[in-house]
């Protein structure tokens, strides 16, 4: 019996093999969206746990990686919805900042704040497409939607960001 069929039947050894095979891929996808390694590790564990719980829904002839990525995306989206938009993701350089560095930091913070105020689905689509340059078809599959819908989400995210940054006096 193949690995996926054994997993679907609830064999823990088969699940362990799949975890070791796919945990890196799941983590990489989540960290691209949430951009925090610690949070991404926690969400990966939660995702793998949910994958085991949802094993009955998996078709053994299906694509396990794509299915896992879809569950991972939902976990990451839930996290983005819960997270406060003010939370900064900047890693500051050591030492006292120069005046132009302060200005750059302020601009970066404003851009981050504006981005974090976007709806979670727009944030995820824009991060994956614009920052991480992931293929649109993979993003669409992970978000459970079409390539056209992903492009529209990116387009809407750009539009909203532009308006918010204009209001904040930031010219990207």
């Amino acid at each position: 019996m193949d690995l996926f069929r054994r997993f679907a039947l609830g064999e823990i050894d088969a699940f362990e093999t799949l975890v070791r095979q796919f945990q890196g891929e799941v983590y990489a996808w989540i960290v691209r969206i949430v951009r925090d390694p610690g949070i991404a590790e926690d969400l990966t564990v939660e995702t793998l746990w949910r994958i085991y719980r949802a094993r009955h829904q998996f078709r053994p002839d299906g694509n396990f990686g794509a299915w896992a990525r879809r569950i991972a995306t939902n976990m990451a989206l839930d996290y983005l919805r819960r997270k406060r938009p003010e939370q900064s993701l900047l890693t500051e350089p050591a030492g006292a900042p120069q005046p132009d560095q302060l200005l750059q930091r302020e601009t970066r913070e404003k851009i981050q704040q504006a981005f974090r105020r976007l709806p979670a689905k727009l944030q995820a689509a824009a991060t994956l497409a614009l920052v991480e340059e992931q293929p649109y078809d993979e993003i669409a599959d992970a978000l459970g939607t079409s390539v056209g819908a992903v492009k529209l989400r990116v387009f809407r995210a750009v539009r909203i960001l532009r308006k918010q940054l204009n209001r904040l006096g930031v010219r990207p």
Partner: protein
Amino acid sequence: MTEHEMVEHGMTDGMTDEARQIREALRQSFPPVNTELRRDLWPAVLSKLDARPARVPWYDWALIGLSASVFLFFPQLILVFAYHL
């Protein structure tokens, strides 16, 4: 926003000038993340599986209770039930 509006704004290849500017701003604002997993997560997954054993939902217990009550008061239904199994 519709597909038609998107095309009107010049987004035929999925990227307008506006999108390119925003993309650059986002890339400068968000530091690159390391996508390599630093440790094996299987032990954490396993302890999570052990910590949360699968529980029978309350409605399953309610269904079992209801079925038992029906069979207690109408034992002839056991034969009907067995026939449909």
